[in-house]
Each structure stands twice: as C-alpha cells, then as structure tokens.
C-alpha cells in the first residue's frame, strides 16, 4: 500500500485514513533520493563518450573564415579581464 505523507520541518505527517487509535505503528519508509553526484558523474562519462566520437573538423574552412573575420581565438584570461 502506498500512502502520501507530508514532510513538515522534522516531522513526517501521515494521514490517518483508518482512524487508528493512539499507540504505535511501524511503517517502512523508502526515500526517493536524487543522487546528484552519481547523475553528474554519469553525465560526465556520457560527455566523454560523445567527445571520443565527435565529428572531425575541416580546419581549412576554420582557418579561411577566421582570417576573413580576424578571429585569433580568445583566451580565458582575456575573457575574464574583458579584453576583447
């Protein structure tokens, strides 16, 4: 049986559908956690796989257009220091 409970501060409030009398009741609680780190590591692995399979680039086109547009390639330092 699944019952929707409400979490309020440090309490888990369970609706008393069956009008249970005062006393103790044992419930098994399963937390549906979102494993962020695991997920991101999975994604990193996925990105690495994609990187390994990525399409090759015709560097001649890049070279010609870069020259035409005067693109030298910005460095991280230049970007951070707004020198562009």
């Amino acid at each position: 049986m699944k019952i929707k409970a409400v979490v309020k501060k440090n309490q888990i409030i369970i609706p008393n559908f069956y009008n249970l009398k005062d006393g103790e009741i044992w419930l098994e609680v399963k937390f549906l956690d979102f494993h962020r780190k695991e997920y991101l590591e999975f994604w990193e692995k996925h990105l690495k796989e994609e990187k390994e399979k990525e399409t090759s680039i015709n560097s001649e086109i890049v070279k010609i257009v870069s020259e035409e547009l005067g693109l030298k390639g910005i460095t991280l330092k230049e970007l951070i220091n707004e020198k562009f």
Partner: protein
Amino acid sequence: MRNFKFVIDVNILLDFLLEREGYEISSKIIEYLVKNKNGYISASSIPIIYFMISKYRKELLPVLPKILNYLNVWKVPSYINWNHPLAQRDIEDYLIHLTAESLDAFVITRDAEFLSFSDRAISVEEFFKKVLEEKKNLKIPFLDLPKQNLQVFSRVEKNLDDIIVHSKFICAKYVKEFEEKFAEYLGAKFCIGVNSGTSALIVALMAIGLKPGDEVIMPVNTFIATAEAVSILGGRPVFVDIHPEYYTIDVTQIENKITKRTKAIIPVHLYGQCADMDPIIEIAKKYNLWIIEDACQAHGAEYKGRKAGTIGHIGCFSFYPGKNLGSWGEAGACVTNDEELADKMYKIRNHGGIKKYQHEILGGNFRMEEFQGAVLNEKLKYLDEWNKKRKEIAKFYEKYLKNLEIKGFIKLPKRAEYNNTHIYHLYVIEILKKNRDDLFEFFKNEGIEVGIHYPLALHKLKVYNQKDIKFPVAEQKQKLILSLPIGKHLRERDIKIITQKIDFFLNK
C-alpha cells in the same frame, strides 16, 4: 542576416574552459560570440559545466558566472515533445535543442547524433560558413528590438511568470510599481499608466474637459495620433508650421492661431528633442490655455533641466515597442504634478471610477496591462544607458557626415540653442542634393533600413485634407527628410558603412 543566434553545446564550451583538445577552435567560436553578443548556453547545461569546473578547474569557479554571462544563459522551455527523436535518444541534448528552438537559434555541436536528429544543430564548419555569410550579406536594421528585448528577457521572465501564476493581468502591482518609478525618474508627482500613447492623449484631453468644437493647437509635422485624439473627442486640431531647424512647433506662429474656441496647445517633442517650452508657457498663461506635452518620442529628453512631459499641465507618453522606452505590446502613460488632474485621469482610464462599479465621471477602458508594467519596470533601468548610446551614435553620424554637410549635400539634425537634451529617438537628416526617394530605394537595395518621419504632414492626409492651407516649412521638409538607423544595436563600424553609402550615392 545579422540576427543569427547560437547555442553552444556543452563539449565545445568545456573544450575552452578546460583547455583540452578542441580548445583552439572553441576559443575562436567563443571570441566571435562574445564580440557579437549572439552566443547562448542552455540553462540545462549549467549543472554539468559547474560539476566539471569544480572537478577539474576549481580556480575558475569564482569567475564562472562572469564567463557564462558573456554567453547569456537561456531558459529551457516547458513545451517538451517527448516523441521528438532526439528526446528519445538523448534528453540532455534535446533540452539544449529546445533552448535553441525558443531562441530561434542554432546549436553548435560536434556530436554526430545531435547533428542527425536536431534541425537546430549545425557543425563547427557550418557555424563558420554562417558567420561569413552574415558578414557578406550585412543588413543594418533600423531597429533591432529582438536584441534589446533578449537583453532584459531573463529579468522580465520572472515577473511574467509571477503574473501568470497569480493571474492578475490589469493595473495591479507591476503597473503601480512602474507608475511610481517612472514618476520618480521624470520628477513628476503622478503617473497614470494607460494602454497606448494615443489613449494617453485622449485621457489627458478628457481630463482638461475638451468639448466638441474646442480647438487644440499642434504642429503639422507629427504622427497622426496627436490630431486623432482631439478629433475623436469632437475637437478641432489646429495646425501650426514647424521650426526649420528643429522640426518642432514654430512657437512664433502659435498666437496667430488662437481663437475664442482654443482650449489647449499640444507641443510635440519630436524626434527626441523638446519644443521650445518657455514661449509656449507664456502664451498659455496669457490666453488661459492648457498645455499637454506630447512626449511620445522624448523619454528622458530634457528642457532647461526638466524632463519632457513634466513642463506643461500633463505629459503624454507612448511605450510602443520601437520607442526609446518600449513595451512588449501597447502601453502609454500620462504624467502630471496636478493632483486634481491626476485624480480625474485615474478615474477616466478605469471607466470613470476607481472603485469597482462606482462610475463617477465619463471614462473608458484605458488601463495598462500588467505584462507591460513588468516589462517597462525592467527596461526603465536601461533607459539612460540606451539614450546615452543613441547620443554616441549621433556623434558618429556627425563625425562621418560633416563633410557632406559642408559641401551642402545634406543637412544634419541640430540641437536647439535653448538648453535642451536630445535623446535621438530618430536621427533625421535632410537630403539636399539628389532625390531623397532615390536614396531611400538605394538603401533598400543595400540592405540598410531607413525611414521617413513623416512622408505627409497632417493637413495633407486624406482624413484632414486641408490642402488650401499652406505650411511651407513642413511641406518642404517632408520631401527632404530621411531617418537613419539609430539605437543600441549599432556600432561605429555600422555608421561608417551607412555614411560611406550616403557619400557614394551623393557623389556618384
């Protein structure tokens, strides 16, 4: 062609940030996007970028927000199509695709699957070909509203969400906030948000009690709305010729037009420059007339230290999208320092009453929408910066066109000799050598958008048809004037291109 936008796939950005294989190419892509301000990152890519940087280049973490800001983080929309082939193969890539879809952008990627299953995805080579194509087919728009609006979108988006979630769409907290801020910006006591510039004029004229047959004096060269507002209420617009240098009402001709029926004067602060208000105030006092300033083209312009719209009894503003302060639809405002007039205008805009079903006077539905209030609140923060940019562009025009003026080929706009701040809503020159319409066509073929404000003076429009009355200055100017592109979207190199083309055309 100028409007290509690009979303960067995560791996290309990571090549740059982690300085790994592919760095050389990604640094060129990023250089182009940063310089042209047309690069974006999907908000869905942030967690993995953050994770990778914290793992491999922790020292970059403090500057990461700055780097990402140059590339503009863009939302992931909620209209997910789970059946999309890319969504079924790679949901992360699909979210990036969706971001690009909401922006009408391309995704630059080296991922073969992404390239196969997304019509938004382009390879690195295609990106370089596109930017070259963009350069070769350069078009200069008169206005670039998408660029301006994208700049404020993420701030506005939050407020739009709030409006939709609470579903309070008319004259609620965002309109109130805008009214307060705009009044403060102008130095006025009251601001009444309405649903267009035309409505602002109608509300103002109703507030001063304009009756059928009353006459209202105004310049003959302006947008129809100024006269239309008077005519709708049964009044009679009385036209006055314009000043030959400043294009605003010729104040020396106002007094000749005053009759027993004259109720008000509407000086129009045309093209971003105030009319000469002191003589108008003097005349109004002498004949006991109302002054309603039409400041629909003068958001932030000043006359002797006072903001346009705050000098007469009422100031009327339009926030039509193309204005210096433009909404995302229709909106306007009336401003005043007079409490009694303000009280009337609050009522008039809302069917004649402030309380629901308590209609005290005759009014109408002139209320401002919350969406517009939310947009204007954010855009107001940029108004001075954007006006400053317009002034810089005007200086570039002056620099590159001065010689043509000396030769007598053109006439540049003049700043009025009275203490006046021009905010260049429009940059209007006169073409003295060769035919203005031929130059207009030439620009059209060259991909440069220009305008004419206005091709016909009001008395010549079919609706007024006062062909017997002569307005020599306005009639002469309407054949010569040409509005050049102006706004934040332009750079000095654009002005060079535009002015070189004018030079070429006039000298050939």
